């Protein structure tokens, strides 16, 4: 039984009582919130990383950290955005590690995302190879803005950077993508 990550899981207002219950330590509420948001957060992590290897760890860390600090969330219906911000911090930590490792051995950086159309596999892999060469923060900002459709101010909030900085990061990755040998 495969669940589409794109499944609509109900309005954000349904999160409000769940968050209130989760703050009291209710495990059922934790489960419900996880079920509602994990597919989306998993997809986001996967698209930024371009690989499956750290997905489960980052997903777990995101939800555990998020649930432990739920009392700090003042607007309960914004829990998805709150989880995205935590996931971004975790992804950045992993990518930074990979970025440093790359200098020691290129083979450790290999990314191979699952691609729906086999004919486009080489193109997508070339694209991720290009993304693998840019600074992790730039890559995160680019995927959030260009692929996931977050506005630049939202990306600035999620990456705790200024709007001008985020614009610069996205433009830098745009240039790398244009210069890459990935062709459709």
């Amino acid at each position: 039984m495969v669940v589409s990550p794109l499944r609509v899981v109900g309005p954000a207002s349904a999160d409000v009582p769940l968050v209130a219950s989760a703050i009291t330590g209710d495990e059922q509420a934790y489960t419900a919130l996880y079920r509602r948001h994990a597919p989306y957060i998993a997809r986001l992590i996967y698209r930024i990383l371009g690989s499956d290897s750290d997905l489960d760890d980052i997903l777990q860390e995101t939800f555990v950290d998020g649930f432990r600090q739920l009392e700090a969330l003042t607007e309960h219906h914004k829990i998805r955005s709150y989880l995205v911000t935590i996931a971004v911090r975790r992804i950045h930590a992993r990518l930074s590690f990979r970025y440093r490792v790359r200098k020691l051995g290129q083979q450790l950086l290999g990314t191979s995302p699952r691609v729906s159309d086999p004919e486009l596999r080489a193109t997508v892999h070339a694209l991720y190879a290009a993304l693998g060469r840019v600074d992790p923060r730039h890559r995160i900002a680019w995927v959030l803005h260009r692929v996931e459709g977050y506005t630049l101010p939202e990306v600035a909030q999620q990456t705790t950077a200024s709007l001008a900085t985020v614009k610069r990061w996205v433009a830098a990755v745009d240039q790398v993508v244009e210069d890459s040998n990935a062709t459709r």
Partner: protein
Amino acid sequence: MRPDDAARLIGEQVSVPWDEFRAARGQKRVLGGLRKRPPQPRRARSPLVWVAAAAVLIGLVGLLRFSFRPNSPQAGLEFGDGSSVLPDAHTRVVPELVAADKIQVRQSGGSATYEVTPHPHRSFVVRVKEVRVEVIGTAFRIDDLEAAVRVTVQRGRVRVTRGARTVILGAGESLLLRDRDDEVAVHAASSGASPLASDSIPLLDLTDAAATEPPETSAAELFRSADDARAAGNSVEALRLLKLLVQQHPLDRRVTLARFTMGRIEAQRDNFAEAARAFESCGNALSGEALAEAALARAAAGQASEAKAHAKHYREQFPGGPRYRELAKLAE
């Protein structure tokens, strides 16, 4: 390649390998992580640390052996209309009737999560022990516990029935039905008394509530007892216990939720003015949800000017809130 094309390509082609197995495994990891104590600052290791590490290692070996037992859990069920059931390990969910106008399953032992596709001409019923949960379109979970059944609604609404008693649960609400209450329910039904007759008893005020409950009762216990009372169809008792919680534990983190639940119960009893007062006592809490409910309750009570004031206040305070559109007409 143009950046827009590259982004579209990733959006269309890169899909996370996500399925129920992975979701369930992740859920287990998250709950396990939450049960552990948060990480503490590192200190110098004492010999006891090595002893503990050895104990953990032995435990892990035992756990691995336990995990690889040959009994595999039941796989999920998926029905033709898209509704699905995901039982936990050691839980049996058996379809009793699958027809165009009705799906009925029986759950025994453990827990299961249900995702029911809305369908106006098909009812979806889950039977657990003597409890019957009827759904129109929603997601919920049922835990068949050792001496109780718990129903937790994630989205939508369900009608929970045991004997002649019925409770309607909304999103985020949970109900614990203890097995020992069965005798009471059967007795009430056989004696000819209406199981819901107690709903017509006037509310006790807070002074009476305090006089009948020992002050040392914890907030958690009061909340649980209120839940039980709701499950037994005794909304008066549930309200009394929730009021007691508010009075005896004014600084407890459950107080706002207790006030909100009081509002829900009063609204279910058609006491809309009382419901509004309970919601209003929550202020702007729960991201304005209480304020929105207060507006609707005032409107239902025929108090248009108060309803309008609340609706306007919500829309000013929460311009991006999920109830913003719903309250537009009331605010006019």
